[in-house]
């Protein structure tokens, strides 16, 4: 009989935990509250099903537990009941799927006025590139990556000359404007993830992936890598600052373009991809001794 009690406690406990525990999503900072709504719909539908099934089971165990002289019923099938359950389930699934797909179609439809910003990942740091005055990003290729051109911007592409490069430093974005993030990696898989924005997407060496969002409040947000990228993965943090338009322009004015950075007198220490993240990544490598055979 203890099992009946435990089954009921699991339902009651889970529901109480859901509503009372302090662990919940971080306050949202983008337009993807649609996603939060679909999560809430999912919690309600699945929560009700979970409670119903487990409580019904608890009732069955209580009501039909073995006692002397009991005998089970003999009922191999019940077509009507089975059909009804199938219909109700299909309805529940549809109620989850339809809003989900609706929001997904928004997620994959980038607004035409979105500004492109490129994020370039490498083990284990983030760099960024913004289009210059021409509003266009120059092409890029991993094969063009050198010490003086760590993001692999095509040196001969005129569109790339005025691109603003932010190497291993913080990215600033203006609040309230849709942003299309173009994602690129020069080594392994990474994933550009800011919990407050809800969105994330892998970056794949050799491809450019993307997603879009609109920052809805100013603030400083931590970038996390969400795709295992080697031993420095947990330290691959970055920072995105969402500014007012004014602050954003002030910041933008201080940044250097690709042409400025690749001018001969500029080359040297300033361009080494040796930010803090890289340094800590190397620390990681140095600290790793375990599971190597004894020397």
């Amino acid at each position, binding site marked *: 009989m203890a099992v009946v009690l435990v089954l009921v406690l699991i339902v009651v406990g889970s529901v109480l935990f859901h509503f009372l525990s302090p662990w*919940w999503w971080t306050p949202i900072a983008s337009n993807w509250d649609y996603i939060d709504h679909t999560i809430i719909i999912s919690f309600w539908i699945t929560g009700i099903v979970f409670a119903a099934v487990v409580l019904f089971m608890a009732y069955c*165990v209580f009501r039909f537990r073995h006692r002397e002289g009991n005998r089970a*019923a003999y009922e*191999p099938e019940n077509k009507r009941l089975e059909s009804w359950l199938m219909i109700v389930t299909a309805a529940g699934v549809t109620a989850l799927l339809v809003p989900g797909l609706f929001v997904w179609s928004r997620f994959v439809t980038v607004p035409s006025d979105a500004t492109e910003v490129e994020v370039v990942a490498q083990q284990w740091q983030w760099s960024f590139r913004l289009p210059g005055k021409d509003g266009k990003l120059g092409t890029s290729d991993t094969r063009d990556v050198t010490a003086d051109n760590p993001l692999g911007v095509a040196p001969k592409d005129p569109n790339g000359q005025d691109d603003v490069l932010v190497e291993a430093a913080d990215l600033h974005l203006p609040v309230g404007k849709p942003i299309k993030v173009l994602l690129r990696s020069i080594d392994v898989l990474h994933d550009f993830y800011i919990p407050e924005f809800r969105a994330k997407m892998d970056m794949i060496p050799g491809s450019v*992936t993307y997603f879009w969002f609109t920052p809805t409040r100013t603030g400083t947000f931590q970038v996390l890598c*969400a795709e295992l990228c080697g031993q420095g993965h947990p330290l691959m943090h970055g920072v995105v600052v969402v500014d007012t338009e004014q602050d954003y322009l002030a910041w933008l004015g201080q940044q250097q373009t690709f042409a400025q950075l690749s001018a001969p007198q500029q080359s040297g220490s300033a361009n080494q991809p040796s930010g803090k993240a890289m340094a800590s990544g190397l620390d990681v490598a140095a600290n790793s001794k375990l599971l190597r055979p004894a020397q």
Partner: protein
Amino acid sequence: MVDVTPADAVPPAEVGEVELYHPHSWWTKYVFSQDAKVIAVQYSATATAIGLVALVLSWLMRLQLGFPGTFDFITPEAYYQFITMHGMIMVIYLLTALFLGGFGNYLIPLMVGARDMVFPYVNMLSYWIYLLAVLVLVSSFFAPGGPTGAGWTLYPPQAIMSGTPGGQDWGIILMLSSLILFIIGFTMGGLNYVVTVLQGRTRGMTLMRLPLTVWGIFTATVMALLAFPALFVACVMMLLDRVLGTSFFMPAIVEMGEQLQHNGGSPILFQHLFWFFGHPEVYIVALPAFGIVSDLISTHARKNIFGYRMMVWAIIAIGALSFVVWAHHMYVSGMNPYFGFFFATTTLIIAVPTAIKVYNWVLTLWRGDIHLTIPMLFALAFIVTFVNGGLTGLFLGNVVVDVPLSDTMFVVAHFHMVMGVAPILVIFGAIYHWYPKVTGRMLDETLGRFHFWVTFVGAYLIFFPMHYLGLMGVPRRYAELTDMNIMTESAHHLNSFISIMAFIVGFAQMVFLFNLIWSIRHGREAGGNPWRATTLEWQTPQTPPTHGNFGKELPIVYRWAYDYSVPGAKEDFIPQNVPGAFAPSREPA
């Protein structure tokens, strides 16, 4: 709806009995045995042994997550090696091997009324190649650089690069080689299981009279035979990339400022191949559990399984659908986002046959005569965890909901609940259920109940709260959760709590192992059919069954596997091989 088939209407055997290979020495009887039952025990023992390694690895990773910075020897490199080996061992070398190689070998011939698998020699080879695969896997712990730390998904390019433990050492090579061996070994066993079910059934055992255990294992095996080749080619291609410098999965890459020689390969191709195997793999583990738990519930509730035909078709439907949902593991992989519409739809459709199975288990309890034996307790616990884990699958399968949750602890909690804890609970229930047949003795009841309560409640307390860490945004595969803005103080406390629960649950498994060994000699004598069950394995002339299973005459089957509490019958069960007037009048035709 047919009436009982009278005994004289049973068709004569189409082929005469073929003499089995009989072992001549201790070695051929117990070591290089061709008896499916011995092979089953060998598979199970090996899987359990390597599973213990994976259990210890999970403790080590929980030490790091629960008490960050306390244990110096757990470097990020080591941490990634722990999680990788834990995941791979649990999914492939424990669950797959135990369900198919262990339970499949033991139960298929006995339940379908065959003397052995149809190809006993190949069956023996299957085990020895599996053992070799396990040894190769274990050897990577002692190889220079240690085992691979690429995550169990082994995504290239990082899996074969120097930033990942074992990437440029032996780790990844040994891992890929071990998987290739495993698949070769499995294919030998798998062909056996399929042919035995199709061709080795005794007279009267129609497909629609098979116990659901056999249906589950059979369908899972067919799926595995179709899915493992995708992993096989992926492993071969990655091995070529790593050893010969080909570029199947390797595009142009700059590693730490240095241009690599690769060019033109596709990392995402590997993901498609991996998940074309990987998603069916989830059901390769789940379907045998579905089948077994159906039989446990029916037997211990003394009631026929509700909606048998629907259960069979649901197993087949799930098996078929699971081949068209793989990319739901890749919603944020950077594949064409329009795939999301298709894969979210197919994924959520799978929920319907899966839900039907859950309803039918619960409706089997309805108006039953429920004996709260240990197998029954584990079956109930399975339903709770499976429903919980299945429902969170509706979050992750529903493409846009997956976006914030993907690659977070929510995913970890979900798949541990649904394909870790749930199938393991069935394995425990099944061991308590069939141990008396394997050894002739019962497992100790008190130890068993202790094991059940700690495992069930403990595992729920580990994985239920973990979902909420993921909802906060805590990513998975983080060796360090320090310096992370979203990690509140209380979230760290929750992690410590989860770790402590993990140690307790792990400890309970030691009690279980002790019970397994102790009861071989000291358990209560079981007799031939302690649960008063209907299926053929309980009707053998000897317990444990001897070589050839059924003595002189193979049983003839007259009824389905679920004649419990038939109205008018004296006993509350009628074995499948009993002819007679008590109509299984409503046996599905």
